[in-house]
């Protein structure tokens, strides 16, 4: 009986090894941390708007339709890379996109949007990065999908690629 008990540590060790190998083999990005805000209401915030002469009040902007929230900055190269897909969401798919301008220069942002095109319906300014912290953002670009009830359904960290564009499109169709 005692000899049989000696097998237990080896079995446990084997289980730990299998778990490690499984985690190594499955397709996952360990640097991406899942959002704690999923299935929760969008954070309430108020900020100056780049496009309008009035303040952006979040409680008035969410909860009516599906909204894509994109944290971006002109100094961020991946933001430039994903911009064509953000435009496609707005122009082709007719999804409302709100761009939160993270720690940026107003003049540079206006110039950037004139050059690349403006897909955003409104642009609240986050000069000190406080809105980003409220959304649990840790590296821009980050994009959130908010449903028509104002609940966050998805968060993507990093630039939107062709693959991600298709994935988010499918998700929007599912939510609709």
């Amino acid at each position: 009986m005692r000899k049989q008990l000696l097998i237990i540590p080896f079995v446990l060790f084997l289980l730990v090894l299998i778990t490690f190998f499984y985690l190594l083999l499955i397709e996952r990005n360990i640097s991406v941390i899942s959002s704690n805000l999923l299935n929760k209401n969008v954070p309430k915030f108020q900020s100056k708007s780049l496009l309008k002469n009035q303040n952006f009040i979040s409680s008035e902007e969410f909860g009516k339709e599906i909204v894509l929230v994109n944290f971006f900055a002109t100094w961020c190269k991946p933001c430039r890379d994903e911009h064509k897909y953000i435009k496609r969401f707005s122009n082709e798919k007719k999804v409302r996109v709100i761009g939160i301008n993270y720690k940026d220069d107003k003049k540079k942002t206006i110039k950037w949007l004139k050059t690349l095109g403006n897909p955003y319906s409104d642009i609240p300014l986050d000069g000190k990065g406080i809105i980003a912290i409220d959304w649990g953002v840790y590296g821009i670009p980050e994009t959130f999908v908010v449903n028509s009830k104002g609940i966050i359904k998805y968060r993507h960290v990093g630039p939107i690629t062709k693959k991600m564009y298709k994935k988010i499109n499918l998700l929007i169709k599912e939510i609709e």
Partner: protein
Amino acid sequence: MKINKALLIIVSFCFIQFFSSNCYSVEPDEILQNQKQELRARNISKNIRCMVCQNQSIDESNAPLAKDLRILIRNKIKDGKNDAEIYKFLTDRYGDFILLKPPLRSSTFALWFFPIIFFIIGILIVFSHSKKSEKNLKK
């Protein structure tokens, strides 16, 4: 003589390494005038993970987000928030991952108790083995 020189270099290197681990990234403009409040802010910052570097606390990290979080913690302290409220604010937004010391929950049970369980199993195995060998010696 050559050995002594090499030894001196190694000891100096270790000395530098020892003190470099105590470097913090708090900038002078962040420090609060009230020493008690500053100490509280430092203690909280040491327990908060930098979400950008992930293996450092925000107290040690130079990342802009770490600085923003350090300032935010200090502002919350100035506003009269207690430590629990500040931790809750951060975990509500970034999850438990932002805490360098994971809290005891059902999902972290294995993390906290498996080392103790394995340690006890190890001791039991060693104990039973030594008893067996004692018996064999007596025979």
